[in-house]
Each structure stands twice: as structure tokens, then as C-alpha cells.
């Protein structure tokens, strides 16, 4: 039977007053709150949404994919706003979300006029299912992310290379580690830069980190998913030749840039927070099972001490 779930912005964001942290978690909110309600095809109502960021939008996309995978039918998705006045829908369209959503949901709503968001501050949502896609993302990373890191966020040139290289490696992981047996791997990347920060999300609906590690090493069979994600962030866990450094080096970059890394996979989410003074450290957050891997990266401007809500709205996220 079809049910309707009305998605609203996450109240926890404002209650907790740690906006940047919870923006990374906005995807969790959508997935955890909405998915259990959708017993069959389902209907997602986004009409009340007034604000959305790349994580949230990618979350909706992945949610629609999960519904399609689970129930074999596309969910109905009611777009934010009623007509061409909806800036949220415009933003989603311009970043390529609407095109992607067409493939996995029945999108209901008027197509808005598109603004040119495919500028230097954005990487539109890009599907990754083979190495050619990764190569194309690398070109975008080098032409967009590096200049942002250097010119806006005060990164040194070599640090910008390191960060862009690592993001490329996270995309490669989708092709190399995420594929479920007999299935083609696929995932997404999206990036948006603000005046003093950069946010990037990489997600896939593959095997997930805990399952990958457990299948390789019996030692980890009884460990909980959060511990396994932590171990995967250490040197050389995931590859057959003990050479895996992607997550480890990503974490090093996040530490160096006093940013936030959020990894959700299996039954846990790990939050590596080096940004918020009051909550610095690793946090293990038990969550309902998630099919693949979600990685969120927040990098603030280097000398910046505080960031967050003001920054988001100052920049005009729509």
C-alpha cells in the first residue's frame, strides 16, 4: 500500500545548534525518518522544503534509489514549491539532481527555469559507475576544487593537490570496493563551495565498509560497524596488498584543515569532528542499517574559527 511521507527540514539541526555537523547528518534524517514509513512504492512530499544542501539532495536521490531497489517501483516525488517560484527546485535542477531523480523516481512538479549553477563553485551531482566517470570527476576536481581550496580556503598548493587527489580516490573506491556481487558499482559525488567553506558528499549503494572488511578479515567479524569504520581509517586495511591509504589520508587532511569527516556505513555513523571546539573528537553514532557508504566532507577556511549557519545563509545556498 502506498504511503505518503512529508519531508521537513531537520529540527535537530537548530535544536543542537551545531549546524555544520548536522548538515552532514541531514541525509541520515531523511533516510531514517522517511524510509520506514514507505512500505511500498511510497510518495515523498518535498513541497515544504525551503532549504536544501548537497547532502540533503543526494540523500533524497539515494532514498529514491533504495525505494526502487527494495520495492521495484519508483517513488512519487513532489518537488519543493508549487511552480517556477521555487528556488530550491531551481537549485536542484541546476546541480543536476532533477535529471538524476528522473531515473529513480516519478518527479511531480513544474520544471523551473534553471540558473547557471554549474560555475566554479559547484560540481553538479555526478554519477560514478566506471573509471571513465572518475577521470571526468578528476578533471572537475582539479579545475574547481583546487582553486577553491587555494583562493578561498587558504590551502597551500600541495595541500590542494593532496585534497583533490584524495577525493578522487574516494570516487575510485566506489568502482573498486562497493560493487555488490553480480551488480555494477555505482555512486554519486556532489560539491558546493561557500564563501568560507567547502562541502562535498560521496555516496554509493554498494557493499559498505563493514561488510567489505568482514569479508576480508575474520578478525573483524564480531566487531561493531563503528569500530570497523574507525579501523578502515587506519593505514592499509582495505586492500589485498595492505596499501589502502584513502580514508586514512582523507582523515589526515580533515585534521589538518580542522574540518569534519562523516562516514556512514552498515549500522553506524562515525563523525570525525575537528572543527567544533566543544565536540572535537570521534563520535560513534549507531544508526539504522544503511546499504552502502556515505562520506561527507566539510572543510572550512583555514584561519576561520567559527563557521556554520551564518555562512550557509550568507552565501545564499539556494
Amino acid at each position, binding site marked *: 500500500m502506498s504511503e505518503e511521507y512529508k519531508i521537513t527540514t531537520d529540527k535537530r539541526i537548530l535544536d543542537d545548534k551545531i549546524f555544520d555537523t548536522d548538515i552532514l547528518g541531514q541525509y541520515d534524517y531523511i533516510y531514517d525518518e522517511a524510509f520506514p514509513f514507505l512500505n511500498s512504492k511510497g510518495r515523498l512530499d518535498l513541497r515544504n522544503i525551503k532549504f536544501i544542501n548537497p547532502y540533503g539532495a543526494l540523500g533524497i536521490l539515494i532514498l529514491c534509489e533504495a525505494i526502487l531497489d527494495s520495492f521495484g517501483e519508483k517513488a512519487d516525488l513532489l518537488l519543493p514549491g508549487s511552480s517556477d517560484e521555487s528556488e530550491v527546485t531551481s537549485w536542484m535542477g541546476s546541480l543536476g539532481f532533477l535529471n538524476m531523480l528522473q531515473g529513480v523516481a516519478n518527479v511531480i512538479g513544474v520544471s523551473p527555469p534553471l540558473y547557471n549553477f554549474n560555475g566554479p563553485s559547484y560540481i553538479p551531482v555526478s554519477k560514478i559507475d566506471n*573509471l*571513465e566517470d*572518475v577521470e571526468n570527476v*578528476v578533471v572537475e576536481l*582539479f579545475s574547481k576544487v583546487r582553486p577553491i581550496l587555494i583562493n578561498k580556503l587558504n590551502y597551500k598548493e*600541495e595541500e590542494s593537490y593532496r585534497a583533490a*587527489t584524495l577525493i*578522487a580516490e574516494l570516487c575510485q573506491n566506489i568502482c573498486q570496493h562497493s560493487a555488490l556481487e553480480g551488480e555494477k558499482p555505482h555512486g554519486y559525488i556532489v560539491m558546493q563551495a561557500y564563501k568560507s567553506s567547502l562541502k562535498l558528499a560521496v555516496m554509493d549503494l554498494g557493499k559498505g565498509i563493514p561488510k567489505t572488511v568482514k569479508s576480508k578479515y575474520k578478525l573483524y567479524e564480531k566487531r561493531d560497524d563503528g569500530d570497523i569504520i574507525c579501523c578502515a581509517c587506519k593505514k592499509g586495511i582495505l586492500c589485498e596488498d595492505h*596499501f589502502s591509504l584513502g580514508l586514512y589520508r582523507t582523515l589526515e587532511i580533515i585534521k589538518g584543515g580542522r574540518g569534519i569527516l562523516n562516514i556512514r556505513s552498515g549500522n553506524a555513523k562515525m563523525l570525525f569532528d575537528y572543527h567544533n571546539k566543544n565536540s572535537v573528537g570521534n563520535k560513534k553514532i549507531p544508526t539504522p542499517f544503511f546499504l552502502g557508504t556515505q562520506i561527507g566532507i566539510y572543510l572550512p577556511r583555514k584561519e576561520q574559527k567559527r563557521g556554520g549557519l551564518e555562512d550557509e545563509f550568507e552565501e545564499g545556498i539556494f
Partner: protein
Amino acid sequence: MSLKKVSFKVKEGGSVNEGFLMTRERGRKTKEVIWAKISELSPNTILEMDFSNIKFMDVSGADEAVVKIAARLEAGECPDRFIVLSHVDLQHKENIETALKVNKKAVIVKEDGSWYIWGDLISSYKEIIHKITEKGSMTAREIQEEMNYKTVNEASTKLGLLYKKCLIAREPYREAVVGGGRQFRYISLI
């Protein structure tokens, strides 16, 4: 003796867009091409690996195309052949250095008239390479005097290790020493 130099433009194997040396699989293909080239070289030749065609390299690519080659040379699979890297940019550097450090290997890199040692090598060994490069070639005895080592043996051991790591070359025959004995003369790759 002077070392022969052969320049070789590294080209990745298997990518659709040119210049993407990423993933282990492509790295392996690239490594095979490089190794085939090294196998053709005559002894006492340096292969100058030019990376100007490579736009992007990841750690796996760097590991296969640089570190594994260095490891095979160190293992003596092609004795008296050497590699020097050139036209490497910061993006390459980031990943080559990471791969070298993980595997405790080192290579010599030429860049805009300067040269560097990348990777894992303790400073006293680096100093020896600098001394030899300054002079062009040196023996263990000369190194002992220059570096104030207590014995020739100490210098000899260090030079032997650098030669084994293919970071310096040496004359094929020992030269006679005044007062008796014979010694190798070690040569810089630069």
C-alpha cells in the same frame, strides 16, 4: 666511466582520457611497459622517466609505476640499470612520495636544473649522495675523509647499500689503492 642516459616518456596503460595513471590495474600495465624498456638497456644506463604526459596519478599508480620498478631494480633483477624521475609536478609528488615512504624506498628526481631525493632514506645516506654528486664520483676512502667516518668500512657499507638501492652507480672494476688493496669508485646518477 660515464653513465648512459635514456629518456623515456611515461604513458599510462589503459585509460580512456590520456594521462590518467590511476588504479592498480593501469599502474601494472604501465609498469610492464617501463620494465620492458629497462630490460632493453645496457648495463650502467639510467632510464630518465619523464612524467610530463601524466596529468593525474594516484598512490596505486605511483606504487606500480615507480615503487615496484625501484623494488625490482633493488632486488637485482636488472643489475646496473638505474632510474631517475623527471617532469614531476606537485600532484605526482604527493602520491609518489606517499608510495615510496610506505614501502621504504627512495628515488632520485630531477627538476628544473635541481635534483632531489624522494622517499625513505636517512639523512646520512642522503648526505653521501650529495657529496658524490658534488664531486661526480668518489671512493669509500674519499667518503670516509670527507664525512669524518672512523673507518673506511663504515663508508664502504653505506656506499654498498646506496648502490644496492640503485641510488648511485659504481665502476665495474675495483681500482688499485696506493699502498695495496683495491676499491670501487661510486658515481652519481645526476
